[in-house]
């Protein structure tokens, strides 16, 4: 102990290390972006040129029609719709789960189709808002059937390789032993009209 007396503390000055680390940090802050790889996933129909031109008659009652014009005003089932877009969710749920009770509404979930038609002048914002609510309606119905929350359901369908997830997914969509889906998500996005722009 006595030997140390009168000597300087043998300490390396490391204060510039913080500066170097800061430089690195700032470099990474500038050159990178936080990846945003989340969004609304939709499948597109096949190439229109290769599709057979057959007229499929869909009874009016099995179609839930949503139309949006170039001023972002909506028509739902032919009626002007001014309420909050979030209310569409409940309307779709009622429509899909009708099972033939109301003669104006769908026969069965299997036959129900939600049709979304926009104008070329409709903004993407409005379109996303409506599409989001349509998907929300379906995801909530699926999640109820599988007995999970909607967030869990969305995680399940993003990772179907897990057998547990696959089982829940099949329960939610009502897969019959014959391989038919009792509860498909049928959203039809029609080509936009050209009126107004």
């Amino acid at each position, binding site marked *: 102990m006595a030997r140390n007396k009168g000597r300087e503390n043998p300490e390396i000055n490391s204060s510039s290390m913080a500066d170097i680390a800061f430089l690195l940090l700032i470099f*990474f802050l500038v050159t990178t*972006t936080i990846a945003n790889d989340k969004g*609304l996933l939709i499948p*597109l129909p096949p190439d229109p040129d290769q599709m057979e031109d057959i007229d499929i008659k869909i009874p009016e009652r099995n179609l839930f029609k949503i139309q949006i014009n170039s001023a972002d005003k909506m028509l739902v089932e032919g009626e002007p719709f001014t309420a909050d877009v979030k209310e569409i969710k409940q309307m779709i749920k009622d429509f899909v789960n009708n099972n033939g009770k109301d003669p104006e509404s769908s026969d069965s979930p299997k036959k129900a189709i939600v049709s979304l038609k926009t104008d070329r002048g409709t*903004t*993407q*914002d409005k379109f*996303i808002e409506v599409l989001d609510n349509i998907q929300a309606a379906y995801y909530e119905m699926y999640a109820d059937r599988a007995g999970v929350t909607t967030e869990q359901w969305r995680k399940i369908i993003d990772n179907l390789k897990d057998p547990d997830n696959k089982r829940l997914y099949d329960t939610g969509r009502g897969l019959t032993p014959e391989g038919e889906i009792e509860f498909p998500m049928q959203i039809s996005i029609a080509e936009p009209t050209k009126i107004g722009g």
Partner: protein
Amino acid sequence: MSKFKKKANTKQDIPTSALPDIIFMLLFFFMVTTVLREVTINVKQRIPDATQLRKLERKSLVSYLYVGEPKKTDQWGTEPRIQANDVFIEPKDVTLWVAQEKDKLNEVERDQITIALKVDKEAKRGLISDIELQLRKANARKLLYSTILEAPE
């Protein structure tokens, strides 16, 4: 007097040796959570918000298209345009672009390609549906509209 002098002898500087560690922690956090910029985005991007977000599992299968009003309006005008890999393209060029993107993937994965559309809020559906039509022709049928999570009310 001597008592006071002894006190003045104690060290007064704050130990800063832990500071680099803290900064390094921040640095590693950023290195892990972010990705390097690949393209300079030349269009305005006010991404719409939604609630039913899905996460993409296989990032290698994703190709991005950016749609919006160009940032340099005096050069490119105010009409929303499509940007793919640093250049502006027309809707009819989308098929070619998809073919090029597919070539970058393994043969078995080519039909699983996902196109992520990062579309500005104010862009019109007309342009987007033109892109969709081209994607259908190019047989790239998995589409993701990039959105951010809507803040709960």
